[in-house]
């Protein structure tokens, strides 16, 4: 799905710490990836691995105590971290928009859903659309996400959870963004509704040709919607490559264990390999490779030296000293 020419988004060596009373939380530590127009990238990892921090950084919405120590986020060549709050606001929703996790909390309960979408459009589309044009556009958006345009005049509480999440997607699409970030958009939903939302999202992405960053802790969902996948652990990107390649031949021990510890309803019933231990405290991350205390392939080098993020095949990157030791699996469900 990658188009030729310039990449849409380049994140390079991004380092971000949260300043807290108890010290520096190393939330993002040297994350680098590139995204092209129309591509869909999945970011997976456990809670606290930094995936939402990356998303919030792209949106320019990181918490006040976030400090960017180095690195760049370039959208079509322009470094977003160097922009003023005002300039960033003009790009938000229009260039990059986001679908948040809690569909319940994304809406103001006292305004009609249509009015809230209209507000976003009025703020970001210049010149402002006429009344008729705006209404037509909103109706088309609602149809696109599988909602009846008559629902536009309803209040958020009149929508079910799945419908609210569809409406959030409509809002995210309203200003024609080049990139949509979806942060766990279906986590709170039941599987049948989740399936419908995922299909809708994929269909729209194909239709409009926008790029998508899909964030989830659920690797099964990532397997379905993305072309490329980035696996994060404790603030670092540890593996990056085509979804097919990473799922069938994970080369980082964490990615490998994550895949082999995911239960599935397909394939033979098998014993799953548990991942021992718990994620590290990012106030005081482990020395060397951050995964070394939990890694079955650990060597002395891992305890002292941080492995570089290297290319091991075209488009497949891994940050591990011993990636060659990781067993080859054929598909997660095999």
């Amino acid at each position: 799905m990658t188009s030729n020419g310039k990449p849409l988004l380049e994140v390079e060596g991004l380092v971000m710490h949260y300043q807290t009373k108890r010290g520096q939380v190393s939330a993002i530590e040297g994350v680098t990836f590139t995204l092209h127009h129309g591509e869909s990238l999945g970011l997976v990892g456990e809670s606290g691995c930094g995936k939402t921090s990356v998303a919030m950084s792209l949106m320019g919405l990181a918490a006040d105590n976030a400090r960017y120590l180095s690195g760049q986020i370039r959208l079509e060549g322009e470094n977003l971290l160097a922009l003023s709050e005002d300039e960033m606001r003009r790009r938000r929703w229009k260039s990059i928009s986001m679908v948040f996790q809690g569909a319940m909390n994304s809406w103001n309960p006292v305004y009609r859903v249509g009015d809230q979408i209209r507000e976003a459009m009025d703020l970001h589309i210049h010149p402002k659309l006429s009344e008729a044009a705006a209404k037509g556009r909103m109706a088309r958006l609602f149809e696109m996400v599988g909602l009846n345009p008559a629902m536009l005049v309803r209040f958020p509480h009149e929508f079910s959870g799945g419908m609210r999440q569809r409406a959030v997607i409509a809002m995210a699409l309203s200003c024609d963004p080049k990139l949509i970030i979806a942060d766990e958009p279906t986590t709170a939903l039941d599987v049948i509704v989740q399936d419908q939302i995922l299909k809708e999202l994929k269909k729209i992405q194909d239709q409009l040709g926008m790029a998508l960053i899909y964030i989830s802790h659920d690797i099964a969902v990532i397997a379905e919607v993305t072309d490329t996948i980035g696996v994060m652990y404790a603030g670092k990107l540890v593996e990056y490559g085509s979804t097919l390649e990473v799922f069938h031949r994970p080369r980082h021990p964490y990615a490998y264990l994550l895949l082999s510890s995911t239960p599935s309803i397909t394939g033979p019933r098998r014993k799953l390999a548990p991942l021992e231990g718990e994620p590290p405290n990012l106030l005081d991350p482990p020395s060397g490779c951050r995964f070394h205390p939990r890694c079955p392939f650990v060597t002395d080098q891992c305890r002292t030296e941080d492995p570089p993020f290297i290319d091991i095949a075209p488009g497949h990157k891994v940050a591990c000293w011993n990636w060659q030791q990781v067993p080859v699996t054929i598909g997660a469900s095999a």
Partner: protein
Amino acid sequence: MTLPLLKVDSLTKLFPVQRGLFRKPVEFVHAVDGISFEIGSGQSLGLVGESGCGKSTTGRMLTRLMDATSGQILLADNGSPVDVAHITRDGMRTFRRRVQMIFQDPYESMNPRRTIFDTVAEPLTVQGVGTVTEREEKVADLLRLVGLSPPETFLFRYPHELSGGQRQRIAIARALVIDPSFVVADEPTSMLDVSIRISIMDLMLKLGDEFDVSYLYITHDLAVARYMCDRIAVMYLGKIVELAESEELLSNPLHPYTKALLSAVPVPDPSFKRAPVEIKGGIGKAINPPPLCRFIERCPWATDVCHHNDHPPLEDKGGGHYVACYLV
């Protein structure tokens, strides 16, 4: 098959819908609507369904955290079954020794002011089991068994000092310390990270074997139910629509709802192509449902038979594969 440990017969829970302060309720939410099943000794049954299908209500009735509106729950007790719905106050203490529960949220299910020792030892204290030293030993043993060792480092800490995974281990220790024969686990791993989840599930399987415990495992995740349970029951709007051995249910689903549910589950393999999900509309209403198949509005195959009869009975279609559908 041996005598079942637990036999549930036409269990029903109706919640009145209040309209106005003094008016008599005329409408009822049929949260659990006449379900029947059995669990054998040492066996585990997974109760699967979407939010609001009545799976948690069922679990709460089996542990007597909630009283049933009607129906019977029989728990085998040294040969003579005990009717759980009519246990006397004195009988309740014996009942709690046999039936325990593990809750979903490890952050909410523990008293923040009590130490781990107090939390895990509470069932023993309430039941008056052993001397203080014996209780201390028993708690330490259990902590070791659930993988929190050395126990001395945990005994006098408070819940807030532990991670979610560790708390769930404490919850398991608390449930098993009294040697129960039946444990209801309500989504015990759904709030944990994937990497922690498997170790907790493995722990429950291992201890279930060791202590000869039967589980009712409530979950929305079919893959988890498959990993944990011998048999799976699928619920929809207060009814069990299908019940079978786990592998049989997954490889040969018969009820249209089970089929839809199975094809909607994402598979962690990008080259896997799922079957289309064949289901209509959204979840129907549980308030005074019409006397028809609960699934009728969403069923793409509903025929005249379905439109002219009450909800179909759960029938054995061979080999212990139960389905409630006229079209099977």
